[in-house]
């Protein structure tokens, strides 16, 4: 089968913060770069990020030090974040953030004219000894929106070639497994095209839509992880899913941690500030995994509010109307729209809600995708031609639990790093791997399967079932037997999805086709999550098990690596060798 081919030096798949930071870097260097996004770029999920971008720019505290930020991040990751990568992110961070200001990002300001920073969970001064830090740079509570629009504007200025509303469906590999590009569908016309490039950068974001209740956008369907897994590539720490403490109960819409940073706190149905019991020092600004678990304990112990006792409250009214309207205007709007609650007067009903995928495609700091772990002594091997940045990647800077405000930093630092690296590689001469017709046919197989389907179950029904399996079997608290049941249900779903039906086969703007292709990706991510979660027999960070309640450093102070071909879980060493500072040794994690 022959399809049209479009050739570039580099293609970026995904138009969120990481993708557009990477494409900007490459466009500035003059290489022929395309950005393929299934939505117009400013509709990407980065737009929903609220609280800010954590970075030691020393505005709120002139003595702030990126090493303190590094310490917090390592501790937050429950010690399975790679320390060389965390070191890079925290160290390069200020430069990347100042660049954003120079690009025009409308940060809120201090009286001195510097960028406003607010306290966020898990932040400390002086390596945990100096009390709460305020390190999250904010543009009111719309930082992600401001960041995404700024990056889009800069890409316009620098002439990035956009393919908006194009859906990347499958990786194209040659016989040796080198990546040659992607198959993508022009959603507007329905045409299928092969994008050929020397470098393919995945910046496809997260996959929160595997859960029934999530803060994630409807487009977060794990397309990059799905494509990687189908291509036989491994994913790392995919069992690590962050549940954000404050999703609006019922709606799932995010309420920023910045609310607690500004002085808000959680109360149970009796009005008690319960975090004082669970985290006596940091209280409501403990790490997200800790707060989310504490909330679930309150709810399970019968102190949840509402007719079903299924949520707690976030109290903000004591901050006063002026602070709420100047620092948290977006939250006030969202609470009124989705909880019919005015935070100036009443507390907002909230519940832990699936928010972020810490795991993903394993990469080094340059975004190069890793195919096989180097083990204890050997070196990592890379997938030629494939890079990953942002939430789809697992560098890993977040380990078992991401700190608030670190995701936006991850996007810009590693989007930029990958751009710089690829630029350099292209200058030195990168190989363009050429696929055979058979390679392209192989990549087209899944599309053709849907196109030729004549009967079977419908996509929305199967998706709903998958989401409820994940919600019920792989939530905040996990248990071996329940997870085994979930894995079996997913195996059954895999068979049924393989025979599902795409009724509408029309060309122009056929969203039913896109949803069908997304369902395949959701399934891949869900299954990897399930098997990895069942396999990691300990509790660490966001992964919390009743049957293994303790952290097990002897066996599990390591990354998990899910191999999709064997559907088996392996291990990979965590990096404990930062280049310029001493290793942070694992210790008990309390807040």
């Amino acid at each position, binding site marked *: 089968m022959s399809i049209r081919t479009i050739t570039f030096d580099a293609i970026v798949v995904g138009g969120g913060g990481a993708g557009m930071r990477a494409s900007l870097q490459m466009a500035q260097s003059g290489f022929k770069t395309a950005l393929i996004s299934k939505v117009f770029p400013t509709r990407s999920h980065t*737009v929903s990020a609220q609280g800010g971008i954590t970075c030691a720019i020393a505005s709120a505290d002139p003595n702030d030090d990126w090493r303190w930020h590094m310490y917090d991040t390592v501790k937050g990751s429950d010690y399975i974040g790679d320390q060389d990568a965390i070191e890079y992110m925290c160290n390069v961070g200020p430069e990347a953030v100042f660049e954003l200001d*120079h690009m*025009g990002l409308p940060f809120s*300001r201090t009286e001195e*004219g510097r960028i406003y920073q607010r306290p966020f969970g898990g932040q400390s001064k002086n390596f945990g000894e100096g009390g709460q830090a305020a390190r999250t740079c904010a543009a009111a509570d719309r930082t992600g929106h401001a960041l995404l629009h700024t990056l889009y*504007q800069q890409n316009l200025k620098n002439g990035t070639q956009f393919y908006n509303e194009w859906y990347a469906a499958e990786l194209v590999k040659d016989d040796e497994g080198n990546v040659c590009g992607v198959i993508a569908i022009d959603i507007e016309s329905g045409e299928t095209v092969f994008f050929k490039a020397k470098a393919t950068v995945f910046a496809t974001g997260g996959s929160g839509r595997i859960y029934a209740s999530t803060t994630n956008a409807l487009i977060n369907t794990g397309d990059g992880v799905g494509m990687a897994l189908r291509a036989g590539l491994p994913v790392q720490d995919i069992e690590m899913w962050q549940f954000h403490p404050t999703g609006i109960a019922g709606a799932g819409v995010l309420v920023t941690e910045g609310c607690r940073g500004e002085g808000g706190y959680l109360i149970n149905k009796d009005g008690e500030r319960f975090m004082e019991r669970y985290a006596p020092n940091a209280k409501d600004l403990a790490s997200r995994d800790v707060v989310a678990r504490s909330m679930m304990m309150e709810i399970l112990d019968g102190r949840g509010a509402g007719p079903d006792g299924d949520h707690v409250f976030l109290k903000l009214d004591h901050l006063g109307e002026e602070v709420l309207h100047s620092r948290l205007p977006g939250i006030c709007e969202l609470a009124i729209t989705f909880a019919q609650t005015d935070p100036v007067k009443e507390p907002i009903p909230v519940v832990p809600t699936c928010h972020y995928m810490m795991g993903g495609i394993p990469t080094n700091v340059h975004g190069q995708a890793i195919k096989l772990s180097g083990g204890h002594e050997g070196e990592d091997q890379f997938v030629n031609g494939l890079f990953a940045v942002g939430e789809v990647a697992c560098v890993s800077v977040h380990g078992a639990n991401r700190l608030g405000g670190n995701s936006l930093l991850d996007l810009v630092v590693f989007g930029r790093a990958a751009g710089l690296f690829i630029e350099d590689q292209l200058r030195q001469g990168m190989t363009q791997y050429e696929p055979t017709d058979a390679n392209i046919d192989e990549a087209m197989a899944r599309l053709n399967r849907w196109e030729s389907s004549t009967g079977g179950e419908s996509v929305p029904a199967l998706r709903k079932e998958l989401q409820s399996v994940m919600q019920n079997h792989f939530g905040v608290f996990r248990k071996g037997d329940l997870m085994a049941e979930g894995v079996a249900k997913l195996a059954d779903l895999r068979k049924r999805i393989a025979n599902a039906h795409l009724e509408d086969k029309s060309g122009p703007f*056929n969203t039913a086709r896109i949803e069908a292709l997304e369902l395949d990706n959701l399934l891949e991510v869900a299954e990897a999550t399930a098997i990895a979660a069942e396999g990691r027999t300990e509790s660490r960070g966001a992964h919390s098990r009743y049957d293994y309640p303790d952290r097990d450093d002897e066996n599990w102070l390591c990354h998990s690596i899910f191999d999709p071909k064997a559907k088996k879980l392996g291990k990979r060493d965590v990096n404990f060798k930062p280049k310029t500072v001493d290793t942070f040794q694992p210790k008990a994690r309390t807040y």
Partner: protein
Amino acid sequence: MKVSIYRYNPETDREPSMKEYEVDTQGKDLMVLDILALVKEQDQSLAYRRSCREGVCGSDGMNMNGKNGLACITPLSQVAPGVLEGKKPLILRPLPGLPVIRDLVVDMGMFYNQYEKVQPYLQNNTPAPAIERLQSPEERAKIDGLYECILCACCSTSCPSFWWNPDKFLGPAALLQSYRFLADSRDNATEERLSKLDDPFSLFRCHGIMNCVSVCPKGLNPTRAIGHIRSMLLERGI
């Protein structure tokens, strides 16, 4: 309740038509986007855009019972009296004034073109400092109510001046962004920006109808921003 939706598939339909659906909301005051999801479960051929479902991405701008807005943050009770109770149908049409690609999906090309024309990016030809460019809270406050635009096109597609001259009149959304950079103390391309706006169409086709203000889902005021630019042009031109 009854939902009436504008349907058009260029592959099969010679002209657009309205199609009726029956949806069970169990009496709940759902968002219009939730209704669309329920309809799509019945009829997967229905096409519409959506992403964040919380009113910040700007994907699902559409015309609901005659008024533009975002489907995801518009509850049935707000669309029109009687819709929630099922006394009146919910009527959904694509944003007016732009070519329809399919069903509720419009071609936003002209809208984005106008956005790009205002050079929507910070321009400053002085060397950047090692830290951020300093900006006082008062200076920063001048771009509040401007930078929040989500490019949903609800405003421009409700503006008669934009309907008649979508290629020449920039429209409220683009002009709001133009002023966002004119008002930013870190931008110093003011003269260049203004010089591109003083022809009879780009800005001056705004007749202060203010449909843009009444439909903006983010509560922004493009008419006021246009007034500010006009004042700047006046100061510069006299």
